[in-house]
C-alpha cells in the first residue's frame, strides 16, 4: 500500500466504460452486436488532440497500466515504470489511453460477460478475437475520445503485435509505432507452449468444456499450470538462477513430492495468484489470438509488402535474454521495414530479465523510448498539466 503517492506517479485513477452498440464484424466472420470497453486515461488531451498515446496490453494485461485505484493498492498499474510525469511516456506532455481488450476479463466484454441472447455468460461461446479485431475496437474508442491520430501506439509482446497491426490497418491514424519485445508471427515453438498451456486448462476436471460458470466452479489448477509454464518462458535462465538458484524452502531435501526448492514455491504462488484473478476462457482466447497473428499472410507472406502501407515512424526494441520473442524475431520486423523504406530505429537491450524485461526501467531502453516519443515535437504543451482522470 502506498502511504503516499510517489511524485512520478499518475496518482489515483478510475477506470471508465465505453459502451458500443454498433455491431463489430470479426475476422472469424462472427459479429459482436454490442460490447463495452474499459479504459483508463492519464494526463490531459491538448487542444488539437495531437498528444494522445495508446498503450496496447500483453496476454494477461488490462486497462490498469499506471497509478493506483486506491490507497489500499499493493501495486501500481502493470507499466507504471514507464508511464507518469517525467517518465518515458511522460504524462506532463502526453494523454495516455490504456484499455482492456475485448475477450479479456477485467471489464471489457469477454467470456465472463452476459450474452444478451441467452442471459448467461458467453463462456466458450465468446468469439475468438484476432489482433485486427482488437485494433478495430481501439479505433472506435479513439473516435469516441475525439482522437483522430495518435501521437504513438505503443505495446510490448502481444501489445507490440497490436501496435504493428495499427500501422497496417490505420496508417493515417498514428504518427509513431513502438513495437517492443514482439514478433511478426509466432514460431512453432511458441505455438507449442501456448498449446500446452491450453491443454493444462481444458484437461482440468473443473473446466466442463468451458461452461464452468454454470457448475459454479473454476479450472483453477489448469489455469495455474498454464501460468506456471508461461512464467518460465517469460524469465531467463540467468534471472531464475540469480533469484532462486537451488535454494531450499525448508533447508533440506525432503524426498517427497512437496516443495523442496524455492523456485517451486514461487511458481506455485504465481500460478495460484493468477488463477484467482484471471478467467480461463480469456486465457485460451488470448493465446489463440497470439497464434493466429500473421499480418504478412494477407500479402503473399511478404512482411515488407505488408508494412509498405504504413506511414508512421517505427521503433523496435528487443531484449538479449528474451527467448520467447528473441531479438532475431524483432529483427525480422526491422528488416522488413528497411526493405519497405520506412523510418525505423532498432535497439537490442542487454538485459538479464528475459521477456519480462520490457516492464523494467532499464536506462538505455527508457532513453530510447523517451527519445522516440519526443514530446518536443508537440510544440507547446498547453493544457498538459499532470493530472489523472
Amino acid at each position: 500500500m502506498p502511504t503516499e503517492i510517489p511524485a512520478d506517479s499518475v496518482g489515483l485513477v478510475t477506470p471508465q466504460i465505453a459502451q458500443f452498440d454498433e455491431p463489430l464484424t470479426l475476422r472469424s466472420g462472427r459479429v459482436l452486436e454490442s460490447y463495452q470497453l474499459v479504459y483508463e486515461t492519464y494526463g490531459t488531451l491538448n487542444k488539437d488532440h495531437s498528444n494522445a498515446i495508446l498503450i496496447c496490453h500483453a496476454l494477461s494485461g488490462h486497462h490498469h497500466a499506471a497509478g493506483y485505484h486506491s490507497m489500499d493498492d499493493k501495486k501500481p498499474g502493470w507499466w507504471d515504470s514507464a508511464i507518469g510525469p517525467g517518465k518515458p511516456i511522460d504524462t506532463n506532455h502526453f494523454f495516455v489511453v490504456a484499455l482492456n481488450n475485448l475477450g479479456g476479463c477485467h471489464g471489457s466484454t469477454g467470456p465472463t460477460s452476459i450474452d444478451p441472447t441467452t442471459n448467461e455468460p458467453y463462456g466458450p461461446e465468446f468469439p475468438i478475437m484476432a489482433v485486427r479485431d482488437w485494433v478495430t475496437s481501439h479505433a472506435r474508442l479513439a473516435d469516441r475520445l475525439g482522437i483522430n491520430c495518435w501521437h504513438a501506439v505503443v505495446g510490448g509482446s502481444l501489445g507490440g503485435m497490436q501496435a504493428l497491426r495499427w500501422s497496417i490497418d490505420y496508417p493515417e491514424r498514428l504518427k509513431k509505432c513502438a513495437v517492443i519485445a514482439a514478433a511478426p508471427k509466432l514460431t512453432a515453438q511458441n505455438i507449442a507452449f501456448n498449446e500446452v498451456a491450453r491443454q493444462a486448462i481444458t484437461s482440468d476436471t473443473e473446466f466442463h468444456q468451458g461452461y464452468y460458470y454454470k457448475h459454479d466452479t473454476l479450472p483453477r489448477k489448469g489455469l495455474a499450470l498454464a501460468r506456471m509454464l508461461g512464467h518460465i518462458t517469460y524469465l531467463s535462465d540467468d534471472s531464475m538462477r540469480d533469484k532462486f538458484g537451488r535454494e531450499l524452502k525448508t533447508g533440506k531435501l525432503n524426498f517427497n513430492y512437496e516443495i523442496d526448492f524455492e523456485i517451486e514455491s514461487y511458481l506455485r504462488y504465481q500460478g495460484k495468484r493468477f488463477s484467482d484473478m484471471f478467467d480461463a476462457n480469456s486465457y485460451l482466447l488470448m493465446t489463440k489470438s497470439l497464434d493466429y497473428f500473421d499480418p504478412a499472410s494477407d500479402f503473399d507472406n511478404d512482411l515488407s509488402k505488408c508494412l509498405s502501407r504504413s506511414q508512421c515512424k517505427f521503433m523496435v526494441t528487443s531484449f538479449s535474454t528474451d527467448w520467447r520473442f528473441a531479438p532475431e524475431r524483432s529483427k525480422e520486423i526491422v528488416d522488413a521495414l528497411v526493405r519497405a523504406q520506412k523510418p525505423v530505429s532498432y535497439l537490442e537491450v542487454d538485459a538479464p530479465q528475459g521477456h519480462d524485461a520490457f516492464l523494467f526501467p532499464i536506462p538505455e531502453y527508457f532513453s530510447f523510448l523517451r527519445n522516440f516519443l519526443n514530446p518536443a515535437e508537440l510544440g507547446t504543451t498547453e493544457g498538459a498539466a499532470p493530472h489523472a482522470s
Partner: protein
Amino acid sequence: MRHDLKYIANWVSTNDRVLDLGCGDGELLAYLSAEKNTSGYGMEINIDEIIACTERGVDVIHQDLNDSLDYLDDASFDTVMMTQSLQQTRHPEILLNEMVRIGKRAIVTFPNFGHWTTRVYLGLKGMMPMSKTFPFRWYNTPNIHNCTFKDFEILCKEQGIRIIQRTVVNTDLEESWAIKLMPNILGQVALYHIEKQER
C-alpha cells in the same frame, strides 16, 4: 563539426537515400539531412551512440557490421557510407562489396597505414606503430585490418570496384599540394567515392 563532413556532403546529392555504416552518434546523418534533405538510417553497435542518434532524431539500427547485410536490396540506397570503420571489420572485402551492391555509390574513409610516420616508427623502433591516427597498442587495437591507400586501391581493382574520386587529407582532414603529390606517404586519411564497375 567534423571536418570530413563537408567533403562527404559534396558527394551526396539532395534527397539522396543514405545508409551510414558505423554511424556513431549520427552527426553525419543529421548534417546530411539538414543540408541535403537526405533520408535513411545509421547502423551502429554501441548502445550509447545509438541513444545519441535518437536524441538527434536520426534513425538508427542496432547492428554488428560483421553480421550479414543480405536483407538489404541491391541499389536500395543512393549512397552507402562508412567512415573510419573498414579497418575494424572482420571481412572488409565482403563489406566493401556489400556497400557497392546495396548503394548505387559508396563512400569509404580509413586511416593510411602507409603514412611515413608509421613506416619510420616500425623501421626504426621495430615496434607496432602508434600515432595520432593509430593511437592503440597492438593488443588492444580495434583495427584488425589495417591497410595503405595502395592496398585499398589494389583491392578495389581486384573486386571490380571503380574509384570515382579520392580525397587524401592529414589528421586535421585538410588537403595540401604535398599530399596530392605523394598521398600514400604523406596522407593520413583517405576518402574514397566508389561504385561497382560496369561489366
